[in-house]
């Protein structure tokens, strides 16, 4: 592993997923209660705990509350190791009540499709009977997190077929059609804070609630990002370059994803 990690000030050899994990970790503040989920968000949570947010707590919707990394890596939150030395094991209803009560600072979700206002689709592409109709697994807890967490972080692969002018189905509401739509729709808080993609990080205008490109990952251009976005993506006037993961960060990520199941680092 050392061989593949270069010296400081030299471009590190990392995957886009590893960079996304590192960027997501930076969105977690110390002491926060985080709806963790699996895959990249779980790695981000663990990385944050090992660096700047040692007191953050993780919630899993099956009913697990953890303050430490599990003793070894796991593929689903229902692995026994995710219960070992947890702080609390309980029902889903209790976890979701904390979310609805406003106690959860940050939640992560992914999506098959997203639009310019951060609305997410994980339910179906097209409609039954239409050509190319694809049924997706559905919301799980995604819609609840998008509705009720104080802040939402979205993690997605940046592809034109996913970043669409209009999503087929709003599974997890973002800012609807912008502005104060959430309040009008009946939502009591929350909304997407950022979309961390394989190409950059999008944030949302505080007035219009439209997504704009806030930072671009090393080696990617704004034009490439725009070309992979299905709407005319606005770019910040002071767009920055996303900070690459540090050597220390990569070491932690790889410790928790030893096979590279989620970050693909062994295949890079």
């Amino acid at each position, binding site marked *: 592993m050392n061989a593949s990690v270069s010296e400081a000030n030299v471009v590190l050899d990392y995957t886009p997923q590893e960079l996304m994990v590192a960027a997501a970790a930076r969105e977690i503040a110390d002491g926060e209660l985080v709806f963790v989920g699996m895959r990249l968000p779980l790695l981000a949570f663990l990385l944050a705990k090992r660096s700047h947010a040692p007191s953050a707590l993780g919630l899993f919707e099956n009913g*697990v509350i953890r303050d430490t990394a599990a003793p070894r890596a796991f593929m689903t939150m229902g692995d026994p190791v995710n219960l070992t*030395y947890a702080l609390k094991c309980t029902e*889903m209803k209790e976890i979701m009540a904390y979310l609805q009560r406003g106690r959860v600072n940050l939640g992560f979700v992914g999506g098959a499709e997203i639009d310019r206002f951060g609305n997410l689709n994980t339910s179906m592409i097209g409609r039954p009977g239409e050509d190319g109709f694809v049924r997706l697994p559905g919301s*799980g807890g995604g*819609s609840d997190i998008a509705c*009720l967490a104080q802040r939402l972080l979205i993690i997605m692969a940046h592809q034109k077929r996913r970043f669409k002018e209009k999503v087929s189905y709003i599974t997890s509401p973002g800012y609807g059609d912008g502005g104060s739509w959430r309040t009008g729709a*009946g*939502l009591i808080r929350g909304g997407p804070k950022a979309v961390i993609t394989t190409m950059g990080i999008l944030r949302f205008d505080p007035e219009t609630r439209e997504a704009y490109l806030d930072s671009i990952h090393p080696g990617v251009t704004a034009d490439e990002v725009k070309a992979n976005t299905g709407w005319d993506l606005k770019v910040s006037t002071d767009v920055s370059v996303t900070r690459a993961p540090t050597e220390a960060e990569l070491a932690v990520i790889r410790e928790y994803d030893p096979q590279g199941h989620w970050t693909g680092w062994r295949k890079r």
Partner: protein
Amino acid sequence: MGASKIIPLDEAIRQLTTDGMSLALGTALEGMIPFAAGHEIIRQGKKDLTLIGPISDILFDQLIGAGSVARVIAAWVGNVTSGAGYNFRRAVEQGHPRSIEVLDHSNYSLALALAAGAAGTEFAVTRSLFGSDISLNQDIFRELICPFTGERHLAVRALRPDLTILHVQRCDSRGNAHFWGSSGVSLDAAAAADRVLLTTEEIVPTEFIRSDPSRTLIPEFLVSAVALVPWGAHPSSVYGFYGHDDDYYIEYAQATKDRTAAHAWYQEWVFGLPDRAAYLQHLDAARLARLRLTHPALTIPVDFGY
């Protein structure tokens, strides 16, 4: 004391399941899923079932692919390890082996629907799902104004499954069940249902249950039958007993990507195996051994004395 409810699994499925019934399964989410019971339902050729569960995992996919299912009420249907459930997709997209109706919930709204069913109200209330297309299904969700504050809430229609099947670590012959670890919506699914079938890793004397009353999840009066089925949740995990067989999920995804292969999968893993004993033999002992827990973390006793 109450009579024993222990019967063999095939007998339990014959007695408790009927075509067209609603059935809650996989209520602890990724762990403790009653796969053995589900396979027996497929073998007995049950039809037109309504499946209820939060993130129902590949047991729903298997029941759907077998043509047993008319309707799914769930928040998520797929394969927790690899993503898509291909039988589910084929049923919804192509009507193969039959078309199914899907009533989309979120995890929380499904939990609330079962909690309302368990508590004997006709609905529950939430502030989730506003602005989501999920909430547009008026059969399940209706807006409701708080009579005290005027604030908007969403009413979620109660669910009362005809039958809930739970896999548990241990229970007595009357159905008092210990369950440890995260339980998802299991208790509400059992308390909402008209009947409950427990499949269990172990059957223990009632004295054993009484030794730790805070570990009891399911009380006997909810339970209609108990079937002893060690490894009955494979390939999902059973806390304290065995791990999650991630490889099996990945293999299953590959094996069911197309119709023909899926057909072979059913022959190999369901129809070709008369019962759970045959399933375990086919799975092979070395694989089971790999799934057994190797790092114990025993709880410290507490005192329920006087």
